[in-house]
């Protein structure tokens, strides 16, 4: 009987494993296409049919100024918005996880609402506000819009991360003679910094890629996704695939770097622990 169970289990296992692998393949199929077609030499205006292999596009990735300019605009918007949102969001996360106060439940709920509203509602309502108040849509409004959803995102992710934080560490520091500020900056802050950075990085990525909310609030500003959208109705040069692949490889590199640093830190900490024994 046990062997019969064994086979059924093995089959089940194999099925689930293959389903998972298929899932990963599914996830990466379009990515493969994007990278592959960055090497294409398209005949027409769009990069849909494979014509031939060429390295030209990678040799001249910035030859389409509208896309490069748009990418720079996106980076500027994302940079500014992420800094502001990280500050605001971290303050909220600290308040929520460190203190217990009246209204925390409502705040929690309030924070989640922007994340769970469809982007089109967020975008069009913000645009309506700007229209009604006569604010011209452009760089400022886009940054404002991005900060809005990024604050929620940073606060929610960070709060989850620092929930288990041991606040008595600060107390211990103060026992040893530190002022509350010193205790915060020297003890708490470095420990929650990785969480802050991770949340900031993720919201930076969200900002660069944001389309719908930006679409409604950009006025004449052109960010990278907006440029892609406009171009999709006219002509898509292969340089677009090159830029996208660059972004992709860049993010992978950052992620791998982060993982390596974290594993090295863990190894060091582990080593120190062993040494102390």
């Amino acid at each position, binding site marked *: 009987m046990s062997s019969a*169970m064994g086979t059924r*289990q093995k089959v*089940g*296992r194999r099925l689930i494993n293959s389903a*998972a692998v298929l*899932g*990963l393949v*599914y*996830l*990466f*199929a*379009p*990515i493969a*296409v*994007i990278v592959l077609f960055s090497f294409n030499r398209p005949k027409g205006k769009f990069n*849909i049919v494979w014509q031939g292999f060429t390295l030209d596009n990678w040799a001249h990735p910035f030859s389409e100024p509208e896309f490069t300019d748009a990418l720079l605009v996106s980076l500027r918007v994302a940079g500014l918005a992420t800094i502001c949102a990280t500050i*605001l969001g971290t303050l*909220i996360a600290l*308040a*929520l996880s*460190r*203190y217990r*106060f*009246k*209204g*925390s439940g409502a705040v929690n709920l*309030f924070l*989640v609402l*922007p994340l*769970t*509203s*469809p*982007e*089109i509602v967020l975008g*069009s*309502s*913000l645009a*309506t*506000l700007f*229209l*009604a*108040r006569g604010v011209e849509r452009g760089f400022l409004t886009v940054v404002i819009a991005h*900060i809005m959803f990024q604050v929620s995102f940073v606060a*929610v992710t960070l709060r*989850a991360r620092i929930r288990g934080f041991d606040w008595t560490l600060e107390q211990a520091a103060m026992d040893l003679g530190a002022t509350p500020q010193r205790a915060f900056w020297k003890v708490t802050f470095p420990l929650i910094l990785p969480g802050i950075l991770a949340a900031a990085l993720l919201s930076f*990525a969200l900002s*660069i*890629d944001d*389309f*719908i909310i930006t679409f*409604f609030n950009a006025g004449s500003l052109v960010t990278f*996704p907006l440029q*892609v959208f406009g171009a*999709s109705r006219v002509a*898509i040069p292969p340089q677009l*695939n090159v830029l996208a692949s660059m*972004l992709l490889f860049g993010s*992978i590199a950052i*992620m791998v770097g982060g*993982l390596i640093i974290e594993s090295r830190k863990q190894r060091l900490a582990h080593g120190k622990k062993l040494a102390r024994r």
Partner: protein
Amino acid sequence: MTHAQTRFTSRPEWVGLGVMVVLAVGVVSLGAGWVTGITRIIALAVMLVSVVGLVWTAFVGGLETRRALAPYGLLKPGILWLSLFFLAPLWSMLQMSLSSKKSRFDFSPSFTWEFGNYATALTDFGPQFSRSFGYAAIATILTLLIGYPLAYVIAFRGGKYRTILLGLVAVPFFTSYLIRTLAWQNLLADSGPVVSLLNTLRLEGVLEFLHIMDNGRLVNTPAAVIGGLTYNFLPFMILPLYVSLEKIDIRLVDAAMDLYTTASGAFRRVVLPLSLPGVFAGSLLVFIPAAGDFVNAQFLGSPSTTMVGNSIQNQFLRELNYPLASAMSFVLMTVITASVLVYAKFMGTDDLV
């Protein structure tokens, strides 16, 4: 002196909460235009007074007071930002949805309690609404079917590769959303690999029957749109599923295996129910943005697959019919928020991350 002060400030948290609410309301009212002219000055004055009051309370109150007020201080900037740029716009949108334009290029519609906008939204765009919710629902189910095995394997069989695997799941989504959707145009193109494969396998007949293919093409069909939605929102299902699966103590599964003797029984009766919070969180995180999306319909769809998002975008940015667009947004928002609140009631918002 101390006694009187303590009594004054005996409930510091109410002061903190009260001031925060006053400021938030003030900010929203300024942003949403509830107050104009002289009332605007009055509102600003009220807000200033409350801030001064708060600071004074903190100043003269004891350490306890300040401790109680500290969280409100930390929260204020963020909450005020959200109030101004999330709540006030919603109010503006509500107001706009009940307005009407005097002429076609009337740039500032006037508030006229025009409920007709909602009537138009529901009657003229009924098909778009039902299509949006329908496509989003199907996409949610598909993400569940595709994402669950993946999340399961990572959580239970990942071991030390878990972070890497999760990273792998996240990596595709560091390319632009639009470019990913365009890549599906490539993949599903008439001359592309998928259609060629289906043709060699002679599956077109079956797929045409199931209305997945239409006239020998895969793109510009509802199936393509749903496929795009599924793909683009897959990580929003995988990550919450992983989080809740990972929390499950493996010993429970072992115990279940001992009790039920089959893996599937153990799964059905132990793992699945324990992973339900993740399933619910993931479903909402997929359904909500999918219902309001228009990019997938734009790139992968046809004139008969347009969703509410396309219509709102069109009304807002081309027809310039802000009142109608706002009414439609509001209907969408209401239906979705209702589901979110119901979910939040039963599950608690903590589980969303």
